[in-house]
């Protein structure tokens, strides 16, 4: 299996791409940050380890990056799903990017913690895309990963078990923490709208104030706009400075999409999107 540096260097020197988006170590050994290499020698800083948390697909739709021309991007299995979803939604073209897939051995929940069964990210526990489905080159080798308990799923089940009133109270409290910094939106690879619904002011559908009402509506609509689109990279939750358990919403929506339509986001770049298509046999028990 090829080494990331060799692959990236080859892409840059041959001129196949103008830039490679990857990870470099930052600060201590348990932290990385995204980095855009434009010169072959920049590639030497690239690392692949258990702390490459960022989903680099978020950069592909950004104006500052698309200016660079054709880019290569390092993608874990979940990141490759995001790229697939972006292609599905016609935001990027397959031929404009080069995906360097990595055989992923799991990542941590956050930086600065050890990689072990306690700290492994929930999304890695039952991961079915440790080898990315969509990639132009593949690097790294698979190894055993620690197993752990999927706490978030347990939380979802916990919320489901509550009655409606308790659920409302729970989410009202959680959402009330929101400060409207929109880190969740900006960190999300699929939140690429040029103007977000919350920034639209004529009329103002979603209030920008961080009040209970504004927060509730914002988090509700964010979850809905990602329904059937969220690929579960969980970057929103990691980015949230107020520790709102956003995955409780996104994952629940993905579960609904699976139950209702047997749909998994980001698995087939040629498939129609979930809300962009329909089936005559869709469930309508709830409609009178």
């Amino acid at each position, binding site marked *: 299996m090829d080494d990331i540096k060799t692959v990236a260097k080859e892409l840059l020197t041959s001129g196949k791409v103008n830039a490679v988006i990857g990870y470099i170590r930052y600060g201590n050994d348990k932290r990385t940050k995204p980095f855009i290499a434009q010169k072959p020698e920049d590639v030497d800083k690239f690392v692949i380890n258990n702390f490459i948390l960022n989903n680099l697909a978020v950069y592909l739709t950004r104006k500052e990056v698309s200016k660079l021309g054709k880019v290569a991007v390092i993608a874990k299995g979940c990141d490759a799903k995001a790229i697939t979803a972006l292609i599905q939604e016609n935001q990027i073209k397959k031929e404009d990017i080069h995906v360097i897939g990595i055989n992923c051995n799991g990542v941590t929940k956050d930086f600065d913690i050890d990689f072990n069964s306690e700290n492994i990210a929930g999304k890695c526990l039952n991961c079915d895309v440790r080898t990315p489905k969509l990639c132009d080159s593949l690097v790294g080798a698979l190894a055993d990963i620690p197993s752990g308990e999927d706490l978030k799923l347990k939380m979802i089940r916990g919320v489901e078990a509550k009655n*409606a009133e308790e659920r409302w109270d729970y989410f009202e409290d959680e959402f009330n923490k929101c400060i409207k910094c929109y880190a969740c939106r900006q960190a999300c690879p699929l939140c690429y709208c040029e103007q977000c*619904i919350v920034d639209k002011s004529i009329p103002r559908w979603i209030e920008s104030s961080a009040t209970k009402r504004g927060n509730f*509506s914002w988090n509700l609509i964010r979850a809905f706009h990602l329904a059937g689109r969220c690929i579960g990279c969980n970057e929103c939750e990691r980015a949230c400075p107020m520790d709102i358990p956003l995955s409780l919403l996104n994952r629940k929506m993905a579960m609904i999409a699976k139950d*209702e339509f047997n749909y998994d986001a980001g698995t087939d770049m040629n498939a129609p999107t979930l809300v962009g298509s329909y089936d005559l046999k869709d469930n309508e028990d709830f409609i009178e």
Partner: protein
Amino acid sequence: MENKNQDPKIVAFVCNWCTYTGADLAGTSRLKYQPNVRMIKLPCTGRIDPVFIIKAFEKGADGVLVSGCHPGDCHYNAGNYHARRRWIMFHKLLDYLGIDESRLHFSWVSASEGKKFVDVVNAFTNKVKAKGPFKKYENINKEFVING
């Protein structure tokens, strides 16, 4: 906002071609239904964005009724199929967040179903009346309200 128990506020988002015409038919047929519904006509159920429903609740609606053409009858061929798929996701999300499912009602009412429209409105109004005002949403609305 007073006397909410007797007088719930209901917002109906209806499609221009079927339900609205159905409501018209109810009118011309002199059928009576409860007057709590404020109807908002849209070109198609496919145009009913979930933010409309959120906004309705924000502005104090106790119930929201969404209605359009039966499957297969859409004036634009597939608008209601798209809408249906969206509603499946949306009503499950609202339920998960703890918004009482019975405050949001979906129905198909065609242009010829004046009677069905009356029944739907009456049944839904009674249901919302029984539920009483939407206290939970009112609470978050009234944060920082004038005079405390």
